[in-house]
């Protein structure tokens, strides 16, 4: 990880959704969607956020942009605290932080031309005259590999891959410093995914944009990310450089996750038998370490004490009692 001040710094971000039921809509439970998230991203770098369904990765992206209001925690962008800002200030900051959605079919208004869809963002932020805006849209379309004259066409005239390029153009036209992309590849075919991944790298190289890439495709995340955070039931269990996570995973969950991906090499040995059980409900997360119910290396302490995210000598951060002082501390606690 880099030593320069991060562009985005998230500390203790938390969101519990209240589940209501019965005639009086009383609270019947809470989903701990995101439970104390600490991450940071620097300019020109990509942080991958991975995990299985219900791990909170999508909610995390929306909390950072305050598309959902967090219950607790702090989001700092260029050193300024976002939560403390007024709506007007928030809008100004949001220009610097854009979102790219999963489904390029559902996220583009079918009754607007591509030009109008992209221009809308500029109008909302009061940028440019009509002429200037058209110039800027043309330039942006070119930088995502589309032709400027395509701005007068409607979304249905484009293929899935082209629509995702339009989605990226809409985010890019505001010249943001950070783009949060939530499953930008999962609706696309393999042959199209490659070109969208190349495009993301290209615009990062050209404009120095920071990305948070939220995805379940572990190979794509590795390919695009500098750092990767692995989430499980609302918490980060491991965060390290992509190289370290994929070549030397530390958390038992990360290891299992990577071993579960079917290899493209038919000769690769399958390592699937040691995976136990299902993901617990985030409404009733297990005590102690949330992963202990499925963990092949669980110890007594794991069901009793929640491991903190700690930094190992090689810079990787991991929340697991197998590493470092936490288990010594816990052992001491148990003795008393």
């Amino acid at each position, binding site marked *: 990880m880099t030593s320069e001040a991060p562009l985005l710094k998230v500390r203790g971000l938390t969101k519990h959704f209240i589940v209501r039921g019965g005639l009086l809509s009383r609270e019947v439970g809470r989903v701990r969607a995101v439970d104390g998230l600490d991450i940071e991203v620097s300019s020109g770098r990509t942080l991958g956020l991975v995990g299985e369904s219900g791990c909170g990765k999508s909610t995390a992206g929306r909390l950072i942009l305050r598309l959902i209001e967090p219950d607790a925690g702090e989001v700092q962008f260029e050193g300024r605290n976002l939560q403390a800002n007024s709506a007007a200030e928030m809008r100004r900051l949001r220009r610097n932080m854009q979102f790219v959605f999963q489904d390029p079919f559902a996220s583009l208004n079918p009754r607007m031309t591509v030009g109008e869809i992209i221009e809308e963002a500029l109008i909302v932020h009061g940028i440019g005259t009509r002429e200037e805006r058209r110039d800027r849209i043309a330039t942006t379309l070119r930088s995502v590999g589309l032709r400027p004259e395509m701005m007068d066409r409607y979304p249905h005239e484009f293929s899935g891959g082209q629509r995702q390029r339009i989605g990226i153009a809409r985010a890019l036209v505001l010249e943001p410093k950070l783009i949060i992309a939530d499953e930008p590849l999962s609706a696309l075919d393999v042959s199209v995914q490659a070109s969208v991944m190349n495009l993301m790298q290209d615009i990062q190289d050209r404009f120095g944009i920071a990305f948070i890439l939220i995805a379940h495709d572990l*190979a794509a995340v*590795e390919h695009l990310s500098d750092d990767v955070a692995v989430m499980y039931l609302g918490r980060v269990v491991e965060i390290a450089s992509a190289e370290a996570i994929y070549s030397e995973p530390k958390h038992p969950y990360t290891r299992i996750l990577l071993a579960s991906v079917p290899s493209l090499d038919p000769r690769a040995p399958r390592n*699937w038998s040691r995976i136990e059980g299902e993901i617990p409900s985030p409404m009733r997360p297990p005590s102690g370490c949330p992963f202990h119910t499925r963990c092949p290396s669980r110890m007594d302490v794991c069901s009793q004490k929640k491991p903190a995210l700690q930094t190992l000598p090689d810079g990787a951060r991991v929340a697991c009692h197998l590493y470092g002082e936490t288990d010594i501390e816990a052992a001491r606690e148990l003795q008393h």
Partner: protein
Amino acid sequence: MAANRNPVLSVNDLVVHLRSGDGPVRAVDGVSFDICPGETVGLVGESGSGKSITALSILSLIPRNNIGFRAGRVLFDGADLNTMSDSEVRPIRGNKIGMIFQEPMTSLNPVLTIGKQIGESLVRHRGMSSRDAEAEAIQLLDRVGIPSAKERVREYPHQLSGGMRQRAMIAIAIACKPKLLIADEPTTALDVTIQAQILELIDELKRELDMGVLMITHNFGVVAQTADRTAVMYAGRIVEQADTTSLFDGPAHPYTAGLLAAMPRLGAKASSGRHRLKEIPGIVPRLTEERSYCAFAARCNYRVDACLRAQPDITLTTAGHQVRCYAPQAPVGQERVLETGS
């Protein structure tokens, strides 16, 4: 291992044209493959390649008035499913041929208990009493790894998690000990750790019941890890077919080679660092036009004149490695190389 046995399913030059507002859609355009007992054949392709329509046609699950034209043979157990009436196919489907689909929530009946849905086929096809069928259903749920099967048998689909629903679907599919299992994107809606469990389960059941399995997926990793033979579909045709290791080691069709080169490899970052992926230019062709040239020609870097004059026939590069291409990438009898598409 399965090579010397008679195939349980033999699909021969299957053609299925669907009706549409824009004229006939040539969804399946001359598809042939065999599946032997105990063998998994992977049918892999991108959306619109015709892989799911192939599966639905084998099962006669496409409504007849949607079909504009159908030809070819689908030999199962010596009989041609393609010429059978609905009432003739019904005793085979769900009995001798089991099926699993992508989304268990939409394929299971939401108002019937899991036990009833498993029992249904036992009562219908095996003539069991409903009490025997429930006892058998409990055993089946237990076999597919659903904990506390005795209680679960009385539950409804919505009470199960996605992974458990897919296990219940598998229990229904294997209830009558089928000779053939057709699995259409069985793990696409599931998380990766659950996917691994389900694929492992299908593999175990294949060996136990000596079933043939047709594994239809867009995921090349799933095929690499489960299939004995792999067939790659593009625009309604199988463009390449070989035993799985040979296909992944030396893809002969430029489309297969291009796809494999376009995918990032897990664990590659430590050695190759930040790099660009190889792209396949262009998009898939419309299936509404009659075509007298190779469907991949417009996107192909290895195009020769012949590609634009006629659709390529099946040729063999090595024993059992079929390809429909005028310029295959791994020439006959030569050492195959891993590096492709450059």
